């Protein structure tokens, strides 16, 4: 399927000056795929998180500084929380991007809403990752 020869020239060149020509990029495809995959991963991560935090061993009442410090001393929980942070943030941001694309009427509104969204996303992801990586159990003592 490499042929691009158009053997129906009399039908070619549809009068469609308004539509931009197709670009060969897969951004939308990967965004769509990412939503599905991250959604599945988040299902496990978030439900697991909720279960551990709210139900297991007395639930939310045992959570204090020491508990958090204990958890984040293990690379496993660091990775879990980091994955949850990144996936949830990017999943949510892409969802909002979709909503903005669908509903913003004016190009300017769309642009600024998206800028706001991207800024917020970068800030939250950066701040969250920073805390998870640099958390030191000594700050409390």
């Amino acid at each position, binding site marked *: 399927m490499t*042929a691009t020869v158009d053997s129906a020239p009399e039908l070619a060149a*549809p009068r469609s000056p308004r539509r931009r020509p*197709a670009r060969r990029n897969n951004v939308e495809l990967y965004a769509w795929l990412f939503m599905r995959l991250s959604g599945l991963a988040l299902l496990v991560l978030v439900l697991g998180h909720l279960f551990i935090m709210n139900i297991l061993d007395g639930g939310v009442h045992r959570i204090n500084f020491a508990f958090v410090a204990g958890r984040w001393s293990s690379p496993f929980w660091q990775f879990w929380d980091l994955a949850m942070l990144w996936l949830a943030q990017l999943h949510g941001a892409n969802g909002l991007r979709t909503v903005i694309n669908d509903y913003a009427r004016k190009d300017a509104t769309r642009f600024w809403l998206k800028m706001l969204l991207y800024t917020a996303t970068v800030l939250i992801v950066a701040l969250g990752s920073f805390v998870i990586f640099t958390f030191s159990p000594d700050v409390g003592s």
Partner: protein
Amino acid sequence: MTATVETAPPAGSRGPVPPAPEGSTTVTVKIRRFNPEVDSEPRWDSFEVPALPTDRVLNLLHYVKWYLDGTLTFRRSCAHGICGSDAMRINGVNRLACKVLVKDLMSGGGKATTITVEPIKGLPVHKDLLVDMEPFFEAFRAVKPYLMTSGNEPTRERIQSQADRARFDDTTKCILCACCTTSCPVYWSEGSYFGPAAIVNAHRFIFDSRDEGAEERLDILNDVDGVWRCRTTFNCTDACPRGIQVTKAIQEVKRALLFRRV
């Protein structure tokens, strides 16, 4: 009836109002109207029309146009669900006026029936129920809905197995009525989205074993305004008067893009 000049018989009338047929009930036909020469905003107009249960909404519109108000403007051609020219929003859903029976719109329990008729959404209204279909056809043309081949033409027909033909049978049934595209919430808010009808017609060629333009069409539909914009709400499938599984066709194009398997 609002401020149209009421002289009898009205302009374009086919003569005096015929007697109501036996067994008919009077229904209110509420039509969203817009006359660009007079109105600055669309307005609602109501007509009392005698209707038989076996009448189609198109008959009611004819009655209005022929005997009550000749200025009512709408498209229709075949009146048998073939040409796709009379798509409109009937009681809030996109249908062909020639395929909806009055008996399916009757309110039960002896209550008075009101049938609302509006132009299809998302396309510019020229007058009354007549919309500008050009953006719709522009998206249709953009997916190159014709056979693309390379090499020498065969001396006889291009052979295809029955299984290969069945692969895209559903999407060959499209009559380009625009019921689907103008029922799509994504299309309402973003007219640059190709819309389900264009994707259906791309599907018809992408999955045709005789066609060689699949890659090209897939690239077109991979764009921001392509299949990834679809939110799988099934409005289009519900609206299609030909019973085409529109959303399924869109999902099949998505799958072909994901796995490049046609």
